């Protein structure tokens, strides 16, 4: 049985092409039906995410199976597309396929390094695959391994850590300043789209209260209503700054709306409780000199972009560690596959013994003449138990956890010793 992975992703194919193949995913039943019809494909799994479409399958005869599955993918577009798809497809086998799947699941193969959604998508696709009864022992094992590897990579490397979106970066910073956000108040100045996104994040991280200060109160009321906050007018800003901890400013005002001196007075009245200001307006709303005040932290949109860039660089570095884990885990999986060969060998041995018993019993019973059913039974039991007792120790030996290389040698020797790979009928006599 060989593991094969065929597919294309954002590195090999443009979005137009990926879209065509992604149409496979909404109708997985049809695809799986098609795959099941292929004799050379034993187990299969199809997954399509925004950046890739891949089919993973196990085949006893990859030479036949690969062109068949490739054909299935090529059939998704017209002639012209087929040419392009043909060029974009990659085929990985065995270790490479396993390692590729691990990398995809860990987000190493994604456009945004380390993004977590892809793992969820693979999990969903796997659920679909099992519902379609397309997966079997090998893929089940591989997918479970994949999920545990992804978990391990996530917990042991910083690949998924550190924010890579502006609004999430802002929340992370807020948490480094305030610790928990559950007793904090967010103040929104202006009600732009960007601000809305940031507020959504703040709300999700448990900010206690939200205040929306907007020039037009109607729009402010609407936004405040959506997030369960209160709306105030811009004129109340200095008063509201006393209550807020996190301020997100995104007005369309042409000049600065809050100066250093104004805020200095506010800070005194706040008794220096820390204040985190995020200025996402262009042109800026908040005086950059504000950052010089004690216990005040001012970030503008460029600062946040800088944070994100640094985080992405960090993820790249962590990816090296993640790849190392994946290499080790790929090896482990391949080793596990070799142990699979032990079971067929044991079954073959047992079958051979049973067959010898049958043949010899037939001969002996014929010579012994008429026996009572009890007597006949005990002769049968005798023969069977001798055979099984004799094989008991070889079985134990094979099942013992040897070094993989040694194990494959042992299996090879056993098979030759008991002549398991010859035509049995010929050898029995």
């Amino acid at each position: 049985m060989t593991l094969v992975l065929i597919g294309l992703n954002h590195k090999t194919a443009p979005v137009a092409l990926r879209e065509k193949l992604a149409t496979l995913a909404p109708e997985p039943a049809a695809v799986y039906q098609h795959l099941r019809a292929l004799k050379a494909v034993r187990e299969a799994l199809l997954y399509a995410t925004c950046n890739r479409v891949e089919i993973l399958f196990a085949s006893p005869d990859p030479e036949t199976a690969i062109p068949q599955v490739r054909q299935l993918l090529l059939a998704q577009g017209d002639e012209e597309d087929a040419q392009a798809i043909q060029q974009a497809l990659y085929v990985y086998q065995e270790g490479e396929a396993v390692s590729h799947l691990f990398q995809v699941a860990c987000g190493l193969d994604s456009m945004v390094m380390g993004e977590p959604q892809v793992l969820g998508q693979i999990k969903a696709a796997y659920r679909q695959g099992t519902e379609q009864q397309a997966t079997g022992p090998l893929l089940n094992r591989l997918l479970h391994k994949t999920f545990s590897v992804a978990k391990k990579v996530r917990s042991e490397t910083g690949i998924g850590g550190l924010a890579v979106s502006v609004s999430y970066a802002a929340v992370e910073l807020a948490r480094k300043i305030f610790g928990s956000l559950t007793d904090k108040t967010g103040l929104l100045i202006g009600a732009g789209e960007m601000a809305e996104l940031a507020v959504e994040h703040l709300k999700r991280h448990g900010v206690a209260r939200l205040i929306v200060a907007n020039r037009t109160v109607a729009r402010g009321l609407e936004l405040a209503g959506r997030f369960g906050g209160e709306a105030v007018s811009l004129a109340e800003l200095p008063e509201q700054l006393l209550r807020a901890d996190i301020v997100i400013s995104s007005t369309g005002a042409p000049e600065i709306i809050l100066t250093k001196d104004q805020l200095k007075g506010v800070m005194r009245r706040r008794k220096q409780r820390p204040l985190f200001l995020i200025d996402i307006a262009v042109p800026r709303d908040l005086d950059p000199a504000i950052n010089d005040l004690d216990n005040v932290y001012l970030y503008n949109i460029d600062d946040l972009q800088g944070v994100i860039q640094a985080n992405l660089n960090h993820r790249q570095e962590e990816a090296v560690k993640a790849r190392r884990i994946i290499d080790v885990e790929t090896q482990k999986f391949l080793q596990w596959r070799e142990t699979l060969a032990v079971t067929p060998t044991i079954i073959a041995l047992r079958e051979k013994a049973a067959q010898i018993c049958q043949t010899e019993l037939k001969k002996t019973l014929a010579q012994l003449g008429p026996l009572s059913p009890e007597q006949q039974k005990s002769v049968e039991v005798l023969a069977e138990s001798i055979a099984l007792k004799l094989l008991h120790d070889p079985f134990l030996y094979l099942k013992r956890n040897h070094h993989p290389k040694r194990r494959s040698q042992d299996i090879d020797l056993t098979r030759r010793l008991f002549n398991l790979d010859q035509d049995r009928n010929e050898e029995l006599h």
Partner: protein
Amino acid sequence: MVDFWLLLLALASYGAATLVWLGYVWRQQDAWHRAGSWAVTFGWLCHTLALLLETVAQGFFPVGSFGAALSLFSWALITTFLILTWRYPVKVLGAMAPPLAALLLSGSLILPRPPEIAPILQSFWLSFHIVAALLGNATFALAFLGGILYLVQERQIKNKKFGFFYKRLPSLETLDALNYYCINIGFVLLTLGIISGSLYAQYTLGTFWQWDPKETMTLVAWLLYAGLLHERLAKGWRGRRAALLAIAGFAVLMVTFVGADFWHRSYHRFDTFGRLP
């Protein structure tokens, strides 16, 4: 002899805990933090047992020499650290407090112990004075370490340059709360230390206060901390300013603790304590 080996064991545990916690800072896995906590707790038990054995053997609390005071300071530091870890888990402190304790303890083990301790040092009230003062010092030491962490973390957030420690240090508010908590408790302990010492001086030397260098310096530190606490409540002195004051206050205390012993005029010198007016 047993107590010496126990102290060595404690020293080894503090050293091991330091290494484990450095591992925690590097790897950020909770298992390291737990291992460090166990190591330091074990060391603390050995240390406590050694102090008890010494007390039983000598018949009074071992505070009579600079070496003994160092050992006691080290013990006080770990005691307050353990209480703090349980109340305010700032895990990075594990990589800072135990090495400091190990340093103090090894200093104590190197310094010779005087064969005889003056009778004036063998009193319960003097022991109380010294233990309270040292526990206060230890609590201020934690505020000092927390202050350093605050400055490092604040600098990163203010300057928008995030280095190795950004992810590894707790939030500013946590560090600031640690500062407030430690200075409150340290202030009470230091006040108790000063009052008990003063009363004992009146009882034995006939005067409450004699402007000895150690007394003067301690008063400076006490005023510094009192000012910080007052301004914090009144004007909200917190964050960077509170961290800087915690560092300054501890620096004064350390000059007092170590310096006074080399200051000839001071009657607070451990080795000549008994030979005074």
